[in-house]
């Protein structure tokens, strides 16, 4: 394998933003026709590095060598001229343009629309990626959009294809399809730089992998020779704390009853919810899986009380109280905690201090006195309790929420809810964009909370997370919620089918 020639080599590449060193002299090489993994946690510097390879960022130091020759990649156009293509994590497609127009934008050569259509059809047949060239991007599913992105790169006949976290938006089945396309592509001699923080994928698809941690290369390994545990250790720097096994919780009374929930889409990009029913018992964690954009944020708005209706919503009882018309504040007073997905600006106000953020969801006694004046000692004490208990690293005392890293801010906003010991807790994407250490910590906190008898709904795109946390799982697809199934009856394949909108045919029905 090592007899293949080197395609691109990174020698001493560094990048700093102000005083922050995002990449510290990165050295590694990619061979021709190799699938090379770039593994690292969020914030390890993976995206910074590939943006330099693609000419979007300028290295502060260091050089790239392409086929042994020193090169400067000044812009994405130059990168494309070398034969570097990139599929971004957040797609760079234009929703209100057609597939053909989107592809034309990325090509340097002049094509007539007619030639381009033929080329697209030919290329998509070659790699088994079927796309209608005249359809608008906005009408495609996320998986299909990614195929357009890949196709767009393939049409440039790349020598190096960069894939930035490509599977984060795909169902397990779609990921399999993607892997087979990538393998086919690498057989044609194209090198692939595959970026991921998912160890199993790296192990499965890549021949070699480079592990980044804190902006530095930890090691480059042959993935066949290392175990996922070893990879995890290199990525995190220590043995990650494991998530506690769930104790056999006795599920108690039904705490939350939802049925006949219908929510019309209130803007062009929203998803309507159709006839959703769901019960949560004490001590139970219900996991709601699904690909982003299938109604998750709308469901969260309903649970938190940001959207209320008694007309299209039949039952929403918590502890036997009809809360359909309760404001978020009233819901909190009832003992319900909730945490929306976006921590910057939704669950926390980023340019407010931590104490002020604590106050936002706790504006009643003992923090507020009878005359509506804030009791500062109590507020500071509660904030410090949250910081101590949830191990939040702050740069200095009582900073603005924006100065905390993603993981620390997420621990803070979750801690702020959990410390009040809610009896019902609704949370969306609790560990999205959070490092492994904080992830494990947050999941353990949720399990502790459920063990104490709290009923929890976790909305998450991360199947691994739901398998670790949930007792029952249901899937949101285009605003419809599948029947909730105990974890034991489900596999990731089955959930993947539900995420893609297919029905599960249970054996008992026999058709």
């Amino acid at each position, binding site marked *: 394998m090592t007899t293949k020639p080197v395609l691109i080599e990174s020698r001493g590449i560094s990048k700093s933003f102000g005083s922050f060193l995002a990449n510290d002299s990165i050295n590694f090489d990619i061979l021709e026709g190799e699938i090379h993994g770039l593994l690292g946690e969020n914030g390890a510097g993976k995206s910074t590095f590939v943006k330099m390879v693609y000419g979007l960022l300028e290295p502060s130091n260091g050089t790239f060598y392409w086929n042994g020759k020193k090169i400067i990649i000044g812009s*994405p156009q130059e990168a494309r001229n070398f034969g570097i293509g990139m599929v971004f994590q957040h*797609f*760079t*497609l234009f929703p*209100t*343009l057609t597939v053909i*127009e989107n592809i034309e*934008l*990325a090509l340097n050569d002049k094509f007539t629309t007619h030639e381009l259509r033929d080329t697209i059809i030919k290329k998509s047949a070659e790699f088994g990626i079927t796309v209608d060239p005249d359809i608008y991007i906005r009408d495609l599913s996320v998986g299909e959009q990614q195929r357009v992105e890949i196709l767009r790169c393939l049409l440039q006949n790349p020598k190096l294809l960069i894939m930035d976290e490509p599977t984060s938006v795909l169902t397990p089945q779609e990921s399999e399809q993607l892997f087979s396309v990538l393998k086919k592509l690498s057989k044609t001699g194209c090198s692939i730089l595959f970026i991921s923080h998912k160890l199993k994928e790296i192990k499965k698809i890549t021949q070699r992998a480079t592990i980044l941690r804190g902006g530095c290369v930890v090691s480059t390994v042959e993935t066949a020779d290392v175990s996922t545990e070893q990879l995890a250790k290199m990525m995190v720097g220590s043995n990650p704390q494991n998530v506690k096994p769930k104790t056999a919780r006795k599920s108690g009374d039904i705490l939350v009853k939802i049925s006949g929930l219908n929510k019309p889409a209130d803007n062009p990009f929203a998803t309507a919810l159709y006839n959703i029913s769901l019960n949560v018992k004490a001590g139970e964690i219900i996991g709601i899986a699904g690909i982003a954009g299938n109604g998750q944020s709308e469901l969260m708005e309903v649970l938190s009380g940001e959207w209320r209706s008694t007309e299209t919503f039949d039952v929403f009882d918590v502890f036997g109280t009809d809360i359909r018309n309760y404001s978020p504040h009233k819901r909190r007073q009832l003992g319900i905690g909730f945490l929306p997905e976006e921590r910057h600006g939704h669950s926390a106000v980023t340019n407010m201090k931590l104490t002020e953020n604590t106050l936002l969801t706790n504006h009643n006694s003992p923090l507020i006195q009878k005359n509506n004046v804030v009791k500062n000692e109590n507020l500071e004490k509660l904030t410090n309790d949250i910081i101590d208990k949830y191990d939040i690293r702050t740069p200095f005392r009582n900073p603005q929420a924006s100065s905390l890293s993603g993981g620390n801010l997420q621990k803070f906003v979750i801690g702020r809810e959990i410390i009040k010991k809610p009896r019902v807790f609704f949370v969306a994407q609790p560990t999205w964009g959070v490092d492994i250490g904080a992830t494990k910590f947050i999941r353990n906190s949720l399990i502790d909370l459920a063990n104490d008898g709290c009923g929890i709904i976790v909305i998450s795109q991360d199947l691994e997370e739901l398998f670790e946390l949930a007792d029952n799982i249901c899937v949101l697809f285009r605003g419809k919620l599948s029947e909730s199934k105990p974890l034991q009856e489900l596999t990731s394949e089955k959930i993947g089918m539900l995420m893609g909108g297919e029905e599960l045919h249970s054996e008992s029905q026999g058709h």
Partner: protein
Amino acid sequence: MIDALVLTILMTSVPLILAATGELVVERSGVLNLGLEGMMLMGAVSAFALTYVSGSLLVGLLAGVISGCLTAAIFGFFVLGLATNQVATGLALTIFGTGLSGLIGSDFVGKAIEGLPTVFPETLSNMSFIGVFFALDAIAYLSVFIALLVWIFLFKSKYGLVLRACGISHNSAHSLGYKVLTVRWCSILFGGMMAGLGGAYLPLMLTPHWSEGMTSGRGWIALALVVFASWMPSRIIYGAILFGAITIMQLAGQARGWTIPPQFLSSLPYIATIFVLVLISSKGTAKYLAPSDLTRPFISSK
């Protein structure tokens, strides 16, 4: 009689077509320039002043185009260079243009110039029914031609595709390696030139004298027209004639003592625009017509 009315309507629509076509390009690239009224006034006063001084209409027209372009450059410096809020900056530009044009024009109030000549000989324009279409000046024909060119540019050329792409998602366009700020600079300057030319048409043709604030809201109507035309150049032409007709009806109605209040007629373009906005925000594909990154400042990192 009817011919005269139709001719006035067509002429009234010319500055609207010019200014709105320019603004359409600006908005398609993702920038909202509410300073249209200010740029038109600057174009109008420069065109009148230079024509009066030099005695040449061509010099006047050029002056209008250049001063519209320079006024737009001020706007571009703020919203692109300093990433300021486009709505606030645009409003400020209108106030600035109104004031400065009044100052420059104070010496020219009450003076008269010779307007633009018609293109075709009188034998053509005297024909019944279709004669009126031959009774116009060069700028009027040019305005339709420009709208047509803009349509071909936006929807048939790669550059137009890139410009539209910048308005839909500047981050995606940047990632593909397009220079979003350059595209927007060009659009803004083009928009300024068109507004300047549209403004110049007023004192050179429509009413051959200068008076302060002589655009009397035409910049705002042109802005409304862009939305009314749902960002399609061809619809600008129909829309401009429609809005021009409403403006003229209001004057004609007053002269004939119609019972419809003129204030109601003058509010019609805006009511029509709000109606289009409602359509756009409702269901169906109309919602996809607006450039999705409109008014969002682009800040690139390197």
